[in-house]
């Protein structure tokens, strides 16, 4: 039975029974769909049963209608686009900044000393608490949202980069030096590729964080975006809108995570453990 992770491919290895892989794949795909279909069916039944009001639990069809009209009117695209823009821009800044900082901290004892307590103390802090401060400084524009995303998303990247670089086998570095590589070549041609699996893990943790923070900042500040539109719907007591938002955000989150997993597999073809890490 599969460990819970995001990979569709592990099921083939874990079923343990002999049998054509394709059938195994279909079997699991079937099992997945069954659960989801079951969920939808229960939802619809519960909604129609009258046990709860339509307000508390709008029926699946109502929610689907809402999503559809959003899609048709173009609102869905605008909102999704806005949220994705903020999340991804923030994520990219955090990724590049985090990797650079991680590299700097690995190379220089002074830089490491300076930033280490900031990182180890800052990591478990609910940095979302700083949102009002960021708004105070930067106003109610996208830049505050993106800054918040960067603030939250950079920590896992830095930590993963440091772990990755520290974990590089010294014999590999020595071999490269043996063959005449200088410091710069060792860093970029040897250390970075060797640390890549760990760095990618950090990025995989960071991306969902970026999305969460983008959504929360939108809820707080309103306006365009999936978070903002959900808050608007809730203020006008339009519960199908609220549920629609959940479905939309869940879908976006799902796609981003899957996309990242595919990217990882592509980049790490050579890696023995081609499995994605368990995402706890």
């Amino acid at each position, binding site marked *: 039975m599969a460990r819970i992770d995001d990979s569709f491919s592990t099921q083939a290895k874990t079923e343990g029974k002999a049998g054509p892989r394709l059938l195994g794949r279909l079997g699991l795909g079937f099992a997945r769909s069954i659960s989801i279909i079951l969920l939808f069916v229960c939802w619809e039944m519960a909604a129609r049963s009258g046990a709860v009001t339509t307000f508390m639990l709008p029926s699946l069809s109502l929610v689907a209608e809402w999503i559809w009209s959003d899609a048709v009117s173009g609102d869905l695209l605008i909102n999704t686009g806005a949220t994705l823009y903020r999340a991804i821009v923030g994520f990219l800044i955090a990724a590049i900044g985090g990797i650079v900082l991680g590299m700097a901290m690995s190379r220089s004892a002074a830089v490491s000393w300076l930033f280490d307590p900031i990182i180890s103390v800052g990591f478990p802090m609910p940095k979302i608490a700083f949102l009002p401060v960021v708004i105070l400084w930067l106003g109610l524009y996208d830049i505050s949202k993106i800054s918040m995303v960067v603030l939250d998303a950079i920590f896992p990247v830095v930590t993963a980069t440091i772990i990755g670089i520290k974990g590089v086998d010294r014999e590999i570095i020595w071999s490269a030096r*043996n063959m005449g590589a200088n410091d710069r070549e060792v860093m970029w041609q040897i250390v970075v590729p060797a640390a890549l699996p760990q760095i990618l893990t950090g990025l995989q943790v960071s991306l969902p964080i970026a999305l969460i923070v983008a959504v929360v900042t939108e809820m707080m500040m309103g306006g365009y975006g999936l978070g903002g539109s959900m808050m608007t719907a809730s203020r006008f007591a339009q519960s199908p809108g609220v549920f629609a938002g959940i479905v939309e955000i869940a879908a976006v989150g799902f796609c981003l995570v899957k996309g990242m997993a595919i990217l990882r597999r592509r980049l790490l073809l*050579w890696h023995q453990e081609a499995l994605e890490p368990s995402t706890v």
Partner: protein
Amino acid sequence: MSHKAQIVIEGVTHSYRPPVGRTVVALEDVSLTVNEREFIALLGPSGCGKSTLLYLLGGFLPIESGRIMIDDKPVAGPGPDRGIVFQHFALFPWKTVRKNVLYGLERQNFSQDEREKRAQAFIDLVGLSGFEDSYPSQLSGGMKQRAAIARTLAFDPRILLMDEPFGALDAQTRSLMQTELLDIWNKTRKTVIFVTHDVQEAVYLAERVAVMTARPGRIKTIVDTRFDKNDPDIFKAKPFIEKVDEIWHLVRDEAIKAQGKRVR
């Protein structure tokens, strides 16, 4: 065999100072001379510092006291004149076998064409033809070690430093690789410094065996092990067995001492 002394190690002492815990003296006042084109083995119990000596020769660790001269020049860092082969292969896992072998060649003055030809020649030499485009994770232990050897030989170092290269392989692969290494050495005639804790391996491969003491390591004795290695039944031949026995007794005391120190 009047080859000139190529490597001169004099009075080398080396300690490890971990950030927590006591300082460990790995080598104490080690002196040794290695001649050009010689195959010499460094033999000793675990922890005797033989690998440390190799790393000092390779320039991977700084020389704190004593000196190491190679061709009358002091060692000042790693370089392609001394090629190293590690026990755990140290191949670059994100590169194919071919790319691994090419890495050393890229830093030398070969044309693109020559590089490709050389790389292929050495891949063939170690018997990995057909696996040029495989990744290390797809190879067996023995194949990985061959790839590592091909990679090191390709940039033509005059000195080969080998750190228990066959230690991670199973017994059959190991003995195959030993014969192949001797073969390659006979063809290329490089100076080889071979670290091992296996007495039979040392006597079979080397012309001289330097037996080291338990930590802190120094050279205890140097035994001559030159004789005809072409005999296919050499492991059963009388002179061979006697040599192994002689050296085994020298090592045994050190091995016991090494254990005793740990028990304390």
